[in-house]
């Protein structure tokens, strides 16, 4: 019943000049998304900045947010990469802020804003 999570990778350059990998998600972000999301995340390569694009996502639940926390946890432990988030609806921006994700990842309205903040 849940829409499969799809991840498309594209590259960009941050305002700082650093390379940025953008992972654009579509489908549902839920417990069933774990493999697709983490596989894509682990395959981004040596870039130091990653943006998670949720502009193609309509449904996110707390299990899906836990996968994003898992990414943040891994990066915190490794200490070598910055993660940003953009494309959330105002509702999900509020939810991400409520659970504390905004403390560890910058949440921007769109790609241009996210790149300018990196």
């Amino acid at each position, binding site marked *: *019943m849940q829409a499969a999570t799809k991840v498309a990778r594209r590259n960009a350059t941050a305002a700082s000049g650093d390379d940025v990998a953008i992972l654009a998600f579509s489908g549902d972000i839920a417990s069933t998304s774990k493999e697709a999301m983490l596989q894509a995340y682990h395959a981004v390569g040596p870039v130091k900045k990653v943006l998670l694009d949720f502009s193609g996502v309509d449904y996110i639940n707390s299990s899906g*947010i836990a996968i994003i926390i*898992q990414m943040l946890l891994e990066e915190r432990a490794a200490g070598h990469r910055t993660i940003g988030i953009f494309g959330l609806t105002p509702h999900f921006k509020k939810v991400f802020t*409520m659970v*504390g994700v905004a403390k560890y990842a910058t949440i921007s309205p769109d790609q241009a804003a996210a790149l300018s903040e990196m």
Partner: protein
Amino acid sequence: MKNGSSVEVRLPSELGFEKIAMSTAAGMAQLMGFSQDRIEDLKTAVAEACINAIEHGNKFDDRLDVGVVLSSNNDELEIKVIDDGAGFHSAPSTPNIDRKIAGEEEPRGMGMFLIQSLVDEAEWHKGPPGRSFVRLVIRLDKENS
């Protein structure tokens, strides 16, 4: 919509069906005149309540249904999500993002917190099998709070 209108939905204990309850709750809230912001809050709260019922209450047992009863009463919309589990009795704890990021707390475990934060009332009731439920209420007079 008439005051006291009620709708009941029964969901299989399979993840993904919570979206049926979300859509039903959104439709009913729209008929009652709730703003889109409040409807989004309600959708997330209802989804999390149904996920808890599917996962923790009915433990994905395909012989069991999750009941969702939506009732309008004056300016409030009440939703009961009923499962066959033992139920919760304690108040949800606030997730600690620092502990989660440090690996000292499971990344999951935010559903009950979200439910309580997004609606005007949330109560968990323990009961015999088929009678444990969470009761959610949103009110029109909280629109601007």
